């Protein structure tokens, strides 16, 4: 039986060890049905390993998880019937046509001929590749493969859809198309979507809730707005003269009312609760210390700022260990 009131994804202390490396190190998840959950982290943070465990491709070293109400280790078949998965690399057979791949998926999920034809007709709109549906996948562009991969994950109308970095490597148009489809699936069909990404703007734009993972651990979890609020309201970015970054940083660390100061070359990034009020003291302090200010920018925090606050690194820098 499928317990529809159970969370879509529920994990407790999920651990996966490869040799000496703890790729996933005690992940807890509680994702209600109907949400888009953004799982955000840099390469090597443990996103894909978590997805592979939740989708039954990999056994956890320890910990437990239930997906769509079923245990990922003890009830794998019921999990598989209820999930759709588009893995990080498009897992497609280059010597089949798009239509053949979708048909094969339908067969393996037990759909009869009529249901398969109906689903493939529905999904053709999503794939949106015209006559290429009957061409070999080897002739497809990266974007076409991604869309076909997504369509293959949807053939059986899963309850929970796992998308592992679905837009990595896509051009902006293809990326926008995938985003629109993710929103539609969630809004029109109520599908729960577990989306891993290394793109901050993707998590920000799509996810109802975001979990930030670094070195195998979830370091923050909440709505994008909550996470941004958690590190202060505003960010002030100061661009200073060449070689003056360190002096500017030291100077600003002595200014009252600033939450944190980070130096990046000739840029200083300041977290502060009231950015408007902080601009003047920042400018005065730097001027007094003889620092040349080229540019002073005030903006609201991004998820990258959250990541920095939680891990000490920027997302773009990746993991340092």
């Amino acid at each position: 039986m499928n317990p529809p009131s159970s969370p879509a994804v529920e994990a407790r202390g999920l651990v996966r060890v490869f040799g000496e490396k703890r790729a996933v190190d005690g992940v807890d998840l509680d994702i209600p049905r109907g949400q888009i959950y953004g799982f955000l982290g840099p390469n090597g943070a443990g996103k894909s390993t978590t997805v592979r465990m939740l989708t039954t491709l990999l056994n956890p070293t320890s910990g437990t998880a239930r997906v769509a109400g079923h245990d990922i280790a003890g009830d794998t078949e019921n999990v598989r019937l209820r999930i759709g998965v588009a893995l990080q690399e498009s897992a497609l057979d280059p010597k089949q046509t798009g239509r053949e791949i979708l048909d094969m998926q339908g067969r393996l999920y037990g759909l009869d001929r009529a249901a398969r034809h109906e689903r493939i007709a529905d999904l053709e709109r999503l794939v949106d590749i015209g006559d290429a549906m009957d061409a070999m996948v080897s002739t497809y562009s990266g974007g076409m493969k991604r869309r076909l991969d997504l369509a293959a994950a949807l053939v059986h109308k899963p309850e929970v859809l796992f998308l592992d970095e679905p837009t990595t490597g896509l051009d902006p148009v293809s990326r926008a198309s995938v985003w629109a489809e993710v929103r539609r699936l969630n809004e029109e069909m109520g599908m729960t979507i577990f989306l891993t990404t290394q793109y901050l703007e993707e998590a920000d734009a799509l996810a109802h809730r975001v979990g930030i993972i670094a070195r195998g651990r979830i370091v923050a979890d909440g709505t994008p707005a909550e996470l941004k609020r958690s590190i202060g309201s505003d960010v002030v970015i100061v661009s200073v003269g060449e070689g003056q970054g360190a002096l500017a940083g030291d100077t600003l660390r002595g200014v009252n009312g600033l939450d944190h100061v980070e130096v990046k070359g000739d840029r200083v990034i300041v977290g502060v609760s009231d950015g408007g009020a902080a601009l003047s003291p920042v400018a005065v302090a730097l001027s007094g210390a003889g620092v040349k200010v080229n540019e002073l920018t005030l903006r609201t925090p991004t998820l990258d700022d959250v990541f920095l606050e939680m891990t000490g690194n920027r997302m773009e820098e990746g993991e340092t260990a």
Partner: protein
Amino acid sequence: MSDTRPLLARRAGFLRDLGSVALRAVRLTRRDAEAVVPGLVVPLFFLMINIGSLQSFVEGNLPPGFDFKAFQLPVSIIFAVTGISRAGSLVIDVQDGYLDRLLLTPVARPTLLLGLMVADLAVITLMCVPVVILGAVLGVWFETGVLGMLVFLAIGISWGIAFTGFPYAIALKTGNPIAVNNAFLLFFPFAFLTTAYVPQEQMTGWLATVADWNPVTYLLAGMRALLMTGWDGDAILKAFLASGMVAAISFTLAFTALRGRVRHK
């Protein structure tokens, strides 16, 4: 929002899964025809060369009435069917992640291998036919008639399928296309340390001992009986038993490797 839609997916069942995997394998085999055809040319070539170069010599050194062409035909069948498999394609599925896509579905795991073997069965059967036709063109026909020819083909096909387990085991264990390509090395001791060129009673020394233990010796004996002497139940039974024993070993290796590959390590 909570999802209360009825579940569309269900287990398709073992036979439907087998059919689905086999359908894809047969389709891809058809598209890989350029990889299959050379495998047919080689045995036909060797049949012609062996007959052309050795017939007079062998027949001259054996009692009158010995038919070297009929003696060689089973060897060509063994050459034609040994090593045929979709193991190379399976390695590509492993590397491309397509095997993962299949494993994400509720497909019955054994069918992932058995379905490929269905395609192998089709190819192996097709490979046997031109060899038998060439034999007929050269004047080789069966003492046991058409029924004997069908049993002859069945022995060859059973051997071809029995041998497929080895390349599949290597493919699943290593995921390495080079290792799979090198699986043909297994073929040499089976194919040459046996009665491929001279009758068993003419063999001496260590080669005779090895040939006694080589299952191909019994396959060839059974097939030659159907061609040259008539219905020899003992020889035919031993031929099928030899295939069965090799199948038991190779399939055990292959399905153990499959279990290891899908065990979610």
